[in-house]
């Protein structure tokens, strides 16, 4: 069987690229190292364009919209529950802080506008600021005009907020620790930074893409499962594939186990840039190879599941009672330790499966041991008033082994200001191409990055000739 294209990785981005290529008449093979599909939900905005283009609704796509979208324990007992309805949330906030309740509607509106700017940036390849091409310049100008039309306040907000820390942003608006804690958590989501680090306000806005005003958690969906269920592309599982490249040109992949070679004139990798390019580093310019090696992808999140006897009373529980709590959790990670008091979030997916997000659990390059793992599980169980046996966690180290993501970073590269837009995955190579002809990247390591399943895959597919 001859293929026109081989896609490495059957995650959302790999599958989206594969489906777009198949739609364009190419014979596509997807190679995936894992034997079974990952049962965990996809977290993040699935852009409408993808749903429409690939007919995902007919394929059984479900996007969850829990209401209330978050529940946070209050220090004095009871909980703060925020609803999809801005007025109802304001009412709930008013019980702990009338001043914050008064700020809530305007905050939701302003953040939504900014997230909208990012959404627009995310559905196309990043602006090429070095370009002299008239079309590209016109596109950049168009973007500038679009932002200006949103008004002076938005222009100022963008310039002011993007480099800020989430703590500074929230301190500008609110006084309640619980509210700032649950919002601040989104600013450090998958980042090895604390809420006081610059750029965390950007990370916060990034994760608002696709959410309606007043909802500050990305949606969950079954998009990967849906894509895999649509039989338009062939997926071959249980094989780790390495790019086959010679004389600056990719000609297919080699399967690690069997050593078999599958040839194709086009190889698209949704694996992380380092894992994809390291094996063919000899084909690369040393400067480029070094830039790839310098991509910051420091995994800090342990993911897992919680098994409870009955259904919980919440859809999404957040344990991050204050910005200081988050900052202290980060301090531990800074020096290589798991947080003594981690930020924990429990998310219920529609199958009543409870998924865990535990931060900060720094990647250790294999030096973390069983005791450390058990101590973490115990700590998380204690925070959630559960038994240690009910908590199952997978550390970034395990993620690296099982998913092949360098340093166990789910996004294949942190979303810091120096690693976004035209600097993702590395400056000058943000258009999904690589210095190896016929080899493209389409994963989270490329623009617009993690947490937006399929967006990088779609952008990449449109750049592939």
């Amino acid at each position, binding site marked *: 069987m001859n293929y026109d294209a081989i896609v490495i990785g059957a995650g959302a981005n790999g599958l989206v690229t594969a489906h777009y290529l198949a739609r364009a008449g190419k014979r596509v093979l997807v190679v995936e190292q894992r034997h079974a599909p990952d049962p965990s939900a996809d977290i993040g905005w699935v852009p409408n364009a993808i749903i429409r283009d690939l007919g995902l609704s007919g394929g059984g796509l479900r996007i969850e919209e829990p209401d209330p979208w978050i529940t946070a324990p209050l220090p004095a007992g009871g909980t703060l529950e925020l609803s999809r309805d801005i007025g109802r949330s304001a009412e709930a906030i008013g019980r702990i802080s009338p001043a914050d309740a008064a700020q809530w509607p305007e905050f939701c509106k302003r953040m939504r506008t900014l997230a909208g700017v990012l959404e627009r940036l995310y559905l196309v390849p990043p602006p090429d600021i070095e370009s002299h091409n008239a079309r590209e310049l016109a596109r950049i100008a168009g973007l500038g005009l679009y932002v200006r039309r949103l008004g*002076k306040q938005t222009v*100022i907000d963008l*310039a*002011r*907020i993007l*480099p*800020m*820390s989430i703590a*500074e942003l929230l301190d*500008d608006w609110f006084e309640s620790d619980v509210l700032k804690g649950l919002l601040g958590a989104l600013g450090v989501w998958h980042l090895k*930074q604390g809420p*006081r*680090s*610059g*750029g965390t306000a950007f990370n916060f806005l990034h994760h608002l893409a696709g959410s309606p005003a007043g909802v500050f958690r990305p949606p969950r969906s079954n998009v990967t499962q849906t894509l895999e269920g649509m039989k338009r592309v062939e997926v071959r599982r249980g094989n780790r594939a390495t790019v086959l490249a010679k004389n600056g040109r990719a000609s297919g992949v080699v399967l690690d186990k069997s050593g078999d070679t599958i040839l194709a004139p086009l190889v698209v990798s949704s694996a992380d840039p380092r894992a994809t390019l390291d094996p063919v580093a000899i084909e690369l310019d040393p400067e480029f190879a070094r830039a790839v090696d310098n991509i910051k992808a420091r995994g800090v999140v342990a993911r897992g599941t919680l098994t409870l006897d009955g259904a919980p009373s919440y859809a999404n529980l957040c344990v991050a009672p204050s910005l*200081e709590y988050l*900052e*202290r959790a980060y*301090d531990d990670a*800074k*020096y290589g330790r798991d947080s003594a008091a981690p930020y924990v979030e429990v998310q219920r997916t529609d199958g009543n499966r409870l998924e865990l997000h535990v931060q900060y659990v720094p990647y250790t390059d294999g030096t973390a041991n069983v005791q450390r793992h058990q101590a973490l599980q115990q700590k998380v169980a204690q925070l959630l008033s559960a038994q240690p046996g009910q908590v199952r966690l997978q550390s970034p180290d395990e993620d690296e082994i099982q998913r092949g993501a360098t340093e166990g970073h789910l996004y294949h590269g942190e979303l*810091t*200001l*120096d690693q976004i837009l035209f600097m993702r995955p590395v400056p000058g190579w943000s258009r999904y191409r690589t210095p190896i002809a016929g080899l493209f990247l389409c994963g989270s390591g490329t623009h617009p990055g993690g947490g937006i399943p399929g967006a990088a895959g779609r952008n990449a597919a449109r750049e592939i000739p």
Partner: protein
Amino acid sequence: MTHYDAIVIGGGHNGLVTAAYLARANKSVLVLERRPHVGGAAVTEEIFPGFKFSMFSYVVSLLRPEIIRDLELPRHGLHILPLESTVTPMENGDYLAAWGDHDETRRELYRHSPRDAEAYDEYGRLMHFMAQAVKPILTKSASGIIGTFLGPRSPGTAYVLLHHYMGELDGVFRAWGFAKGGTGAVSEAIASAGRSFGAEIRCDAGVSKVLVRNGRATGVVLENGDELHAKTVVSSLDPRRTFLQLLESDQLPSDFVSDIKRFKFRGSSGKVNLALDALPSFTCMPGVGRQHRGAFSISPSLEYVERAYDDAKYGEFSRRPYMDIVFPSMIDPGMAPPGKHVMSIFVQYAPYNLNGGWTDAKREAFGDAVVNTVESFAPGFTSHILHRQVITPLDIERITGLSEGNIFAGELALHQLFFLRPAPGWAKFATPVRGFYQCGSGTHPGGGIMGASGRLAAMRILKDGT
């Protein structure tokens, strides 16, 4: 009643620069300074008999060469002595030194890491290139953490490093130096230049309010109740005092007031000034020698500095702080009696908002932490201390007026720079009140004894036509 073309509030170096430029353009100018002498945070004071200190700011490097030329500062007594080296003691007893001679620095780096020595040249070129790129923006219109409330791993600190990399004296790139007679001598030279152009400088003359009539500044009211009138009023105070203290809030648009209210200061550094009967001998480089003509930087590792920051994040002063130490009397013997020395220690972090607030006891505890940390790198040093002055951010605020004791009159954070300094739409020295201007470090480009804000403000005022 005298009517001036311009009244400048505050006789710090930026206020004096503005006044000098305006006077040079034949305007009648009056500078009003609250303290008994000019200089603001750039002052030399004889704190202990015979021992003179640059109380706050202590090195001169960012001072714009065009100001030195335009105002002919050397003729008015400015004499800069180069600061030749930086020695950083390491925790293993070794040291890392950067000397005035580039090749010597390279050899020294090579001793520690051949790879870093290679990278250093590249880094230096890159920083030079970037600083050259940033500089035009500034002039037309560890040092990575100095004066900010951020740790070294916090994004954005690279800008502050760059800001300091722009140090330029007489056109020599990255030269740091002392002013003979301390930083107060810089202020004195600018004041003298201003006077030579006809500017009048009045000390012990604090301003309590700016007079505004029909949305236009018409003069000032002094603390003693006197009113003085001028076509233009310029404030070199920081943005908080300029807008929230000198004006009534109903004289300004409300969104502008809220922008100024959220402008961040958060002073985070202190100063310890010591009078010594002998120079300390550092373990890493024993004895007394040329190393004392440069700076000692107590920043043995990124982790050390990060931990120093951790204390401050939660409202404590650093138990083992980052310090920049210089011995001005080694370069300028006039600063201390014969055989004796002055030692100036810039200390970070000492948060303005200390848990429980600053008290005399806490100030001394902070001083002890500083002295003890130095002692750990230079055993026996403590026994040579004759006098000690400890300055906290609260003291800086109390003495100089700088809000929250921030030495840059507002943090140099990315969201407070360029067109956002001090507030969006008002970065070009004008204010919402006609005839009222700002010229201090709280405006673009800000911080350090640079004088650029003062000069640019004067240009703007002259362009607007006083």
